[in-house]
Structures are given as structure tokens and as C-alpha cells.
């Protein structure tokens, strides 16, 4: 089905692994964390994150939200826009959106990461290419189509939306996990076995710690993907900020549309920023790429 891809570049610039997972899951193009052999000199915790990274994005988001709020204070809304935005509807949509994202991400991770570990064990290794092919096919499935099918099958509500979001994000995180575990330096595993570690020991003490950056990248991928797919939940009656966007489009009310879009964008960027911080803070120090 899926032909071999042209050989992907295996010389990524340092620190490139944190880019959103959406795209780059070609086989062999795994993470490069095992590369640096020179341990970085000890630094203070805060030095790991430069202040521009810490301040810039939240500041931009805050300014945009403030500007939007000021604009809404002055804008005269007609009755349709009023109803769409009153009664805490905006807050409710926002809360639903966050809920959908968090719950779905949780499930994505507890499904995809153990499955990825399982598929790289000896007994199941034969199944990995099949799973990868499946994952590649899944990439071609439009999220909205998947969601619509689930809604037809299960009825309107939050449940089909959640399941759709989860299915859609499991595949990329799974193939990322498999690619990353495969990219671990085999000599390290060999060395671990050589000093007499059991296979469980090798997994928990060597392979998994080496794969932590990758797992964190998976978390980030899932979060960002899920914030996006959650906007589609509205088409299946699942709520979320997509409600404001679709209400704005169908009723031709630009303020509602703009507010929905701006909040969604702000949420997506903020979630991505949080996840990127977590990636930096939680990666084992020994794997850090010296910059």
C-alpha cells in the first residue's frame, strides 16, 4: 500500500524534535536525542529556558485578548450576537473545549504510548509495519469525515466527538513512539543486557528514559492536534469553541465569528507553549543537546 518513502533527512538540526508531530513521521526519521555524548555543563534550571521564550508568547496572547475585549466593550452587538455571546455562553464553550482537549489527550497517551512500547518488543515487532501502514492510511482520513461517521453511528453528543478526537490523534502519537523507540542506539541496549539487566530492566531503566523527550513530543503533538480537532466537535453537538465559529458563519455575525476564532487561536498557541515548556523542563538532563 504505502510505498517506501524517499529516504528522509537524518541530519536534522539540533533540537528540532519539538516541532509539531503532524507531519514528520517518516520511518527512520526518529529522534536524535541519543547523539550528544558530551554531558552539558551543569546550569541553573532557569537557564534552560531563555526569557524570550518564557515571556514573548504569553505577552502576545494577553495583548490580543485585551484588544479583543476592549473592542467588544465598544462594539454594538445586535440581538443575535447578544444571544450567542450572553449567559456565559462564551465561557461555557471555552470550558468545554478545554475539557475535550484534556480528556482526549489523556486517553490518546494511555493508548498510544503503551501500544508503541508493545509494538517494539520482540514478540510483536512483526506487527509494527502493519500498524505503521495503518497509521499512514489514517493520516489520509479527514477528521471531519471521521467525526461525522461517528455521529451518525452513535448519535449527537460529546461522546462521539471525544472518540473521534482520540482516534484521530492516536495514530500520529503511536507512529512517533515507534519511530523513537526504534531510533534508540542499539549499542546502549546491548550494553545494558551485557551487564545483566533483564528485559524489563532494559525497558524501564534504559529505553524509556532515552525515549522521554519523544514521549513528551507525543504529548505536545496530541495536545495541539486535539485542540484543533475539538473545534470540529460542534458539528456533532459536542460543544467547544467551534460553536461560536459556526454560529458566526451561519448567521453572518462577524463579532461572534471573530471572538470564537481568536479564542481558539489563543488557546491553541497557549497549549503549545505550555507543552513546549514541559518538554524542556522534563527532559532528562543527560539527553540535552548542547546549544
Amino acid at each position, binding site marked *: *500500500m*504505502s*510505498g517506501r*518513502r*524517499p*529516504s*528522509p*533527512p537524518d*541530519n*536534522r*538540526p539540533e533540537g*528540532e524534535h519539538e*516541532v*509539531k508531530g*503532524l*507531519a*514528520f513521521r*517518516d520511518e527512520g526519521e526518529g529522534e536524535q536525542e541519543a547523539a550528544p555524548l558530551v554531558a552539558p555543563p551543569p546550569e541553573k534550571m532557569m537557564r534552560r529556558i531563555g526569557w524570550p521564550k518564557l515571556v514573548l508568547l504569553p505577552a502576545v496572547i494577553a495583548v490580543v485578548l485585551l484588544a479583543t475585549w476592549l473592542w467588544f466593550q465598544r462594539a454594538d452587538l445586535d440581538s443575535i450576537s447578544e444571544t450567542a455571546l450572553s449567559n456565559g455562553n462564551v465561557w461555557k464553550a471555552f470550558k468545554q473545549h478545554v475539557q475535550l482537549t484534556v480528556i482526549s489527550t489523556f486517553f490518546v497517551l494511555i493508548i498510544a504510548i503503551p501500544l508503541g512500547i508493545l509494538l517494539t518488543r520482540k514478540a510483536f515487532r512483526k506487527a509494527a509495519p502493519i500498524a505503521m501502514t495503518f497509521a499512514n*492510511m489514517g*493520516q*489520509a*482520513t*479527514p*477528521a*471531519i*469525515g*471521521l467525526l*461525522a*461517521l461517528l*455521529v*451518525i453511528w452513535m448519535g*449527537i453528543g460529546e461522546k462521539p466527538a471525544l472518540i473521534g478526537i482520540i482516534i484521530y490523534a492516536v495514530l500520529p502519537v503511536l507512529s512517533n513512539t515507534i519511530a523513537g523507540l526504534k531510533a534508540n542506539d542499539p549499542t546502549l541496549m546491548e550494553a545494558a543486557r551485557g551487564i545483566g539487566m533483564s528485559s524489563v530492566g532494559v525497558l524501564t531503566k534504559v529505553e524509556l528514559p532515552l525515549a522521554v523527550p519523544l514521549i513528551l513530543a507525543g504529548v505536545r503533538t496530541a495536545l*495541539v492536534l486535539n*485542540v*484543533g*480537532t*475539538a*473545534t*470540529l466537535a460542534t*458539528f*456533532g453537538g459536542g460543544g467547544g*469553541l*467551534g460553536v461560536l*465559529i*459556526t454560529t*458566526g*458563519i451561519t448567521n453572518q455575525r*462577524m463579532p461572534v*465569528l*471573530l471572538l*470564537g*476564532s*481568536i479564542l*481558539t*487561536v489563543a488557546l*491553541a*498557541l497557549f497549549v*503549545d507553549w505550555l507543552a513546549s515548556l514541559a518538554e524542556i523542563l522534563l527532559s532528562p538532563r543527560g539527553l540535552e543537546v548542547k546549544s
Partner: protein
Amino acid sequence: MNFWDYIGNRHQQLLADAYQHASAVFQCMVVATLVGVLIGVVSYRSEWAGNLATLTTSTILTIPALAMIGLLIPIVGLGVAPTVIALTLYGLLPIVRNSIVGLRGVDPALIDAAKGIGMSRIARLVKVELPLAWPPILTGIRVSTQMLMGIAAIAAYASGPGLGNEIFRGIASLGSKNALNQVLAGTLGIIILALIFDAVYVLVGRLTIPRGIRV
């Protein structure tokens, strides 16, 4: 009406939608490829510019498609315009990133050799660096195309062209007998289109990747 009857009855409409879908994605991919490779060429030599290009395009990719379209509608209105702009923007990241990675990955010794035989900067870029960087760029194009297939479906909500309309017609008539047929036809159509495009890219790769660097 079962699914095959539905396909038989509506094949003209479906083919028209599929054609529009493919053509929208294809045209946006051409623009995204040209712009993306250009950005890559301009920025890969400086660490700073390259990182800025990657950061900007990856920020765009973080924005949910529906929100991006929502932001574009007040500016350019409904229909083809927001679809084309959104698709082109989303198509950029994988191409920009892979161009930069590919161009930076070219063996400096080869560039030196090219310099040594008297090639100009442009000649080096066109005859040495870009052909060597082509496989990762092509991978970027494939990844982008797959992604755009799905985003184009969402753009149909803003009256964009393509098979997404079939899906949204199904959602609008939830509960009716045809809803499933419509959604299924739209979804499967998009999957088939994506697979066809992917096969074409494999072929393009066979034909255009210089023989010397094939694996």
C-alpha cells in the same frame, strides 16, 4: 438507497466535487511549494533566519483550521478565497522545514568542489544543492498534501469547493437515510484522492531524484 446506488445516482456530482477538491489542493500545493522552497533558499544559510522561518510556519500550523478560516472570512469573505489562503498557509511548514533541513544537510565538501570548478552561487544552488535537497523536499510535499486533503474538507464549511460539501450535506441532514451515504462518499473520496496523490508523488520521486543519491 444503499451506498452503491447512491454512488451510481450521484456520480456526476461526486466526480465534480472530487475534481474540485483535487484541483484546489493541487494548486495550493504548487504555490506552497514555490513559496516554501523560496523561503528555504533565502533563509537556510543563516541560523537565525532559518529558525524564524520554521517558527513562523509551525505557529501557523498550530492554529486550528476552522479558526484560521474564521479569521479569514471577515477579511476576504466566504468561498474560494479563504480556502485557498488557508490551504497555502498550512502547506508551507513541512516544505519550508524540509527545504531548510535538506539544504543545510548538503555535504560542504560537495559545495566546495562545485566552487572549485568555478560554479557561480546560482549555479551551485540550482545544479548541486537543490537536487541534493530534493528528496526531503519531496517528502515535505507529500506530507503537506495529505494534510491539505483534510483541511480542504473543513474549508467546505466556508462555502469552499470540494468533497467536504458532501460531508457537510450529510451532517446537515443527520437522521435522513442519505446522511450516511453522503458522509461516507465524501470521506472515502478524500481518502482515495490522498492515496492517488501519494502514488503520484512516489512516481515523481522515481523520475526526478537524481540517480546518484537514490537509496
